[in-house]
């Protein structure tokens, strides 16, 4: 893309040329390797002393493939939102690398960072705090155009914002309203419209539908689905609602306490989970079918997630795991395919004793069975 004189980017940014190239479907658009984010814990006011670190993200590696949706699930505090922020460069990474189309972006700054950010947009978790209460909806959604004026010329911005409002299911006449005049669900749509404004290639959705009502959730999921097809978007979809993640994702990664504990295709994770944490998480999801109430085979985990400032040695899940043994305390399990696992069970899992659950069928599978036959 040749930028004109009014562009704030300037044509001299070599990265922009590299970023302009298309990535073929099936190739990774984002490569994340050993990404670490530690937040330092300090003591004292004048003489600051480092007393430790909150290990929010502690060595995470994965690829985001062009055109796919990668779901990231895990409980609050497991580092999924921090991961998103580090990928966006909203928080500098402590170590590790993030490559966008082969270019290292985790150390970028200035104009180069700005160019990358146009292509990686984010939809935030909390629609109450991510929208400026003193700006109108039109200003909020139009603000990306102020920063990247080459996307929409000044005269067309109002029109563009109204189109975006229409696309996310809000009345275009609401353009002069303020965020407080909208319900939580409608605010999240405003956030999605803002994320779409610059026509990015990657959208990182951080719990985009958890604040929405069920009937509206479906609309937004369909909307995201449609936009993905229309604009060849790649999504990283962070959520704790496992059924929605399953619906939208091609691949799913499960995080626990700053680590990726299991990653694979949606079938591999949901029907052939080998990590005990994934199994517990899946079993805890309430099934919207009252006839399954008694039949469900739930693993109720004891206690809470340990503090990420002082994670357990070895396997981080061992304090809540029913399979934990001596080895789990001493040795950290790697995210690898363990030998001996068959077919769909053979995917990356960070457990020394990775195996499928022995129960006959999970509740979800039972539901599925009659449909299969």
């Amino acid at each position, binding site marked *: 893309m040749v930028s004109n004189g009014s562009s704030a980017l300037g044509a001299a940014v070599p990265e922009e040329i590299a970023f302009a190239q298309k990535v073929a479907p099936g190739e990774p658009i984002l490569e994340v390797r050993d990404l670490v984010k530690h937040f330092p814990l300090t003591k004292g006011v004048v003489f600051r002393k480092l007393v430790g670190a909150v290990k929010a993200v502690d060595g995470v590696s994965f690829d985001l493939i062009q055109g796919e949706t990668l779901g990231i699930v895990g409980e609050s505090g497991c580092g999924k939102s921090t991961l998103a922020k580090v990928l966006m460069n909203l928080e500098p990474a402590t170590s590790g690398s993030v490559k966008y189309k082969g270019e290292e972006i985790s150390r970028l700054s200035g104009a180069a960072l700005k160019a990358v950010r146009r292509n990686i947009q984010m939809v935030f978790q909390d629609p109450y705090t991510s929208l400026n209460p003193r700006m109108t909806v039109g200003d909020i959604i139009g603000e990306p155009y102020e920063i990247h004026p080459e996307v929409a010329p000044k005269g067309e911005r109002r029109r563009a914002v109204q189109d975006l409002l229409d696309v996310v299911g809000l009345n275009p006449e609401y353009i002069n309203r303020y965020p407080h005049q909208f319900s939580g669900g409608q605010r999240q749509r405003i956030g999605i419209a803002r994320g779409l404004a610059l026509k990015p290639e990657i959208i990182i959705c951080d719990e985009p539908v958890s604040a929405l009502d069920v009937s509206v959730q479906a609309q937004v999921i369909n909307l995201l689905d449609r936009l993905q097809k229309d604009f060849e978007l790649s999504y990283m979809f962070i959520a704790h609602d496992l059924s929605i993640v*399953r*619906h939208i994702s091609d691949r799913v990664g499960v995080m626990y306490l700053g680590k990726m504990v299991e990653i694979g295709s949606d079938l591999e994770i949901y029907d052939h989970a080998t990590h005990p944490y994934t199994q517990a998480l899946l079993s805890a999801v309430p*099934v919207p079918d*009252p006839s*399954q109430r008694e039949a469900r085979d739930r693993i109720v985990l004891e206690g809470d*997630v340990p503090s990420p400032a002082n994670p357990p040695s070895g396997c981080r899940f061992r304090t809540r795991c029913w399979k934990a043994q001596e080895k789990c305390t001493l040795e950290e399990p790697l995210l690898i395919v363990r030998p001996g696992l068959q077919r769909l069970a053979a995917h990356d899992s960070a457990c020394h004793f990775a195996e499928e659950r022995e129960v006959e069928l999970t509740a979800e599978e039972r539901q599925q069975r009659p449909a299969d036959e």
Partner: protein
Amino acid sequence: MSTSVSSASAGSRADTVDSSDAPLLQVNDLHVEFRTRDGVAKAVNGVDYSVRAGETLAVLGESGSGKSVTAQAIMGILDSPPGHITGGEIIFKGRDLLKLGSEDRRQIRGAQMAMIFQDALSSLNPVHTVGAQLGEMYRVHKGSSRKEATAKAIELMDRVRIPAAKDRVNDYPHQFSGGMRQRIMIAMALALEPDLIIADEPTTALDVTVQAQVMDLLAELQAEYHMGLILITHDLGVVADVADKIAVMYAGRIVETAPVGELYARPAHPYTRGLLDSIPRLDQKGQELYAIKGLPPNLLHIPAGCAFNPRCPRAQEICRQEVPRLFQVTENDGTELAGRGSACFFWKETLNGE
């Protein structure tokens, strides 16, 4: 407790539902409106429901459906102004709460009915210890001393299985995790062993593994104390897990009531059907999810006739003109289905899936 509630016997919850007694709480034709500068928002437009001791009623609805406002009216914590109860009655243990004075309401609130709020962090006072906040219930309602109140607070924290309750009683809310804070909210609601608990989205802010713990705890305590529970939620999964009967609300009205199993198997209102169809299912992966078109109505301008008609696939001329009452749902041969009602002119067609 003056009413003759039989001892909370062991066994499944279905057995403990005493169907012969009068309901613990009966809401009749409740109307609530908010008088705002922009006009009058009719938040609740004639809601009827009842809960018996030991029974769990799930009130299902989207934001703005009036489910929380109804609960606030029952509790007597409606912000007034702008909220006004303009009609109806709330009969709790034989007395109409709307006819009582504020002091009588205060005696009932907390002691006989209690509420669990969605967001425990903003519902707990950040500048008081959890022990002080739990103990306050005993100090205010029972006139206990500080010492007794603290002892009771520890007992309650043990009751909701907060580990090391004795050491943590003097901690502040921010020192607890989300699940633990919700347990404290539950403990506070349970403190005076009320007959009715209203839980407004109690697990929406929690993770699934913690949600499972909290819902289990709530169900267990409910069975133990033989309480009535009104569970306000939009999560169809949670409802399927714990509810005995369901009332579906839309635009301030109840559009369908049914026992839990029947609602999921054979919904009799297009809105309920739409909600159920919009849950992601395994066999629909990769396809478009069914979505109810449009948005929930603006309460300042509720559509004429059936409020759902602009979003309804079944809407006919009559739906735009007449407000459907809650029809008794019957089987095709005319036998009444107990506890089932649908506020749709075409409930029969919807029930049969035509």
